[in-house]
């Protein structure tokens, strides 16, 4: 698809980057009454760090005490609970269990409880081995005890940001895809951003304020436009293995490991789509877009899942994926407001951004307000429900008139696919269509449906499944 960028856009706020954070910020500031444009270099949202994560809505019980991250997680968590029904976003109330498998892990419990208390998450509970195995009878018998975190939940990591930006758009936010910001000038009042579009049309975007939510490229954007960056992105990959739907019944809670100094560790978690997944790993790498997978890591995850939940050996694997955390040389969020330059950088939103994004957006609004910058808040903003693709809620195939089930494994219908191609934020590439409909994301990975899907998406995307016609 060619870029829809008009040659000149002139707005209050330009949000650069359509990851989770950019989508949430665009929504917040649009609802506050600002004119906003979201600029994304890819053909669709969620091209970077936000492509793959664990989809956990965190309470913040284990967040760094008194940090901005903690504040944003808790505000984000609360706002999600407030708005999810009006946007038709799902919530799987799983709860989490921090399971100790060794004596020394059990010794960490008091520290964890203390930290949670300080973070005002007061409903944690100790479970004895017996209580733990009553709740999760499929856990290996080597489990010793657990801390229950009742309000850790699972959400849909792709529909949430889609819903945030869709709501922004129906309330007036502009978007421009396949548009990369490459530089900019500030005249004391207003930014003029230089962009590169797919078709090499150089567009111009003017904005009073700019928000850098370029995620994995946040440091580069600061350098390109401001000439310096406060931090350097150290991409940290996390790989996952997804088990087929029969696994979903085996584990009810999010099974967390006891965190170490270095990492939160490998989690076994139910997904909103009716699977069970294990991951992530944590490996630093050079590449910012290298979301490849590695056999050794996948085997390690698989073995670990089976060690902790032995019955998983009777369930086949559907898929593997990887996400890249925009980590920096420090563990905290790298947020800075260059007041004299009307520039806000939301950098290093490393491993909690799905939850925190709505809270980060509130923080942005606060930064503006502190400088006396306010807009005319929309009195009756439109809600914009997105289609449900969560397994535990009504799906499209359960309503008549869907014409045809295209993807049999995920029961994705033709009606759903057509809708996703024509929605407020239409899918910009195949990955975007998968994230909106689940098509080909199931156990057969396209064995049955890719020919039909290719036909339904003909001429829609720059990169298609087929590369040409047969000779005959």
């Amino acid at each position: 698809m060619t870029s829809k960028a008009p040659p000149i856009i002139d707005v209050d706020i330009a949000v650069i980057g359509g990851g989770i954070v950019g989508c949430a910020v665009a929504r917040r500031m649009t609802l506050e009454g600002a004119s906003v444009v979201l600029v994304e270099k890819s053909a669709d949202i969620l091209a970077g760090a936000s492509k793959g994560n664990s989809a956990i809505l965190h309470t913040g019980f284990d967040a760094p005490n008194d940090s901005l991250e903690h504040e944003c997680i808790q505000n984000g968590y609360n706002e999600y609970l407030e708005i999810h029904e009006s946007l038709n976003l799902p919530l799987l109330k799983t709860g989490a269990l921090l399971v100790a498998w060794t004596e020394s892990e059990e010794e960490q419990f008091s520290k964890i409880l203390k930290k949670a208390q300080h973070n005002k998450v007061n409903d944690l509970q100790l479970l004895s081995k017996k209580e733990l195995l009553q709740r999760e009878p499929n856990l290996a018998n080597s489990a010793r005890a657990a801390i229950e975190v009742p309000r850790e939940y699972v959400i849909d990591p792709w529909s949430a940001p889609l819903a945030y930006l869709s709501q922004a758009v129906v309330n007036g936010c502009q978007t421009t895809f396949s548009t990369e910001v490459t530089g900019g000038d500030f005249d004391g009042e207003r930014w003029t951003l230089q962009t590169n579009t797919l078709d090499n049309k150089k567009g111009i975007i003017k904005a009073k304020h700019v928000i850098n939510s370029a995620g994995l490229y946040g440091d580069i954007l600061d350098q390109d436009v401001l000439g310096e960056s406060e931090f350097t992105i150290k991409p940290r990959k996390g790989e996952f293995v997804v088990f087929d739907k029969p696994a979903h019944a085996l584990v009810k809670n999010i099974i967390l490991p006891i965190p170490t100094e270095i990492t939160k560790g490998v989690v076994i978690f139910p997904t909103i789509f009716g699977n069970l997944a294990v991951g992530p790993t944590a490996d630093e790498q050079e590449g910012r877009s290298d979301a490849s997978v590695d056999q050794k890591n996948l085997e390690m995850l698989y073995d670990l899942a089976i060690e902790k939940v032995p019955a998983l050996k009777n369930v086949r694997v559907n898929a593997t994926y990887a996400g890249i955390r925009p980590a920096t040389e420090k563990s905290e969020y790298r947020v800075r407001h260059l007041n004299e330059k009307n520039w806000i950088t939301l950098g290093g939103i490393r491993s909690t951004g799905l939850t925190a994004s709505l809270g980060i957006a509130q923080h942005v609004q606060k930064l503006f307000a502190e400088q006396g910058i306010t807009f005319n808040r929309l009195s009756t903003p439109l809600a914009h429900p997105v289609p449900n693709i969560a397994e535990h809620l009504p799906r499209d195939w359960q309503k008549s008139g869907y014409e045809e089930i295209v993807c049999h494994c995920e029961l994705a219908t033709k009606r759903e696919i057509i809708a996703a191609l024509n929605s407020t934020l239409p899918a910009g590439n195949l990955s975007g269509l998968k994230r909106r409909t689940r098509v080909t994301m199931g156990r057969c990975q396209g064995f049955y449906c890719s020919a039909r899907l290719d036909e339904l998406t003909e001429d829609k995307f720059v990169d298609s499944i087929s590369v040409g016609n047969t000779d005959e």
Partner: protein
Amino acid sequence: MNKHSENNNTDSCDVAIIGAGPTGLSAAITLKEAGLHNIIVIEREAEAGGVPRHCGHPPFGFKEYKKILTGPQYAKKNIERALKLGIKIQCKTTVTKLGENGELSLATPEGLKTLNAKKVLIATGTRETPRSAQFVTGDRALGICNTGALQAMVYLKGKIPFKRPVIVGTEIVSFSALLTCRKAGIKPVAMIEENDKPSVRWPIHYSHYLFASKLLLGNKINKVIGDKRVNAVEVINKNGDISTLECDGILFTGKFTPESSLVQMSHLTIDENFSPTVNALGQCSDPSYYAAGNLIQLSNEEGRNNIFYAKGNAPQAVNVSGLCWEHGRDIANNILKSL
């Protein structure tokens, strides 16, 4: 799953057959010819016929029709035979749940339905294992698929997913993939096989000469390379030597696994091959259910497939259609006796 349904539509029948592939159609024909009328074949695709529908190459149907047919010709003959007998084949209908005592939940474009069958035959077939479940290292780029997807694209839609793929595996189906490539104007770069010998004795052993592509034995994929679309694969041999093959796709062939998640999510039990557990009559752990065809690992010991496979090399759960046809018929006869 169906608690939000608009379901107010319940039907009943003597035998419901899930899947209108060779197995399901053979069973339906057997039942009908024996005088059982209240039967229904349920098929989730828009057209009946099963996998042969998109295998535009021979050999199919020798056992059944004493002729060597292509897959689509064979599928057409099966369907015509069933329709002539007045068998009801209900397409675009997906069984979404196997309930106790033969209660089936169906999704149709007209709405959700329940079908109560005295006996159910599950004949949902088998599929290949995708790249993901094989934990192959590297980029997750476009241009990677199984033979099933390739054939559906080529034979049903006239499209190709790549022009110069690397083919992984040397089962019978890999040969079928070579034929399909040739027909579509696709030129495989190489065929690779982890073992020192190809899985099949013939025709693979010679066919790569025919198709002028390299056969690399004792090699496996070390890494998939490609940003949006595959542009190379690294292969590694037993000595650890790595070489790079430029290509624009990868075809993962074979490693069949039963299409049985529906069974696994039901009250029925499964065996270590992920097939429903069945007794000698083909009956599942709930006696209302039977299973047949490619969903079940038909015995290799009897030598049925051994014309193709070198000793001890036969992969799991792949049966030629003639065998499935016979199996469908046999199990249908067992069902008849039980009614």
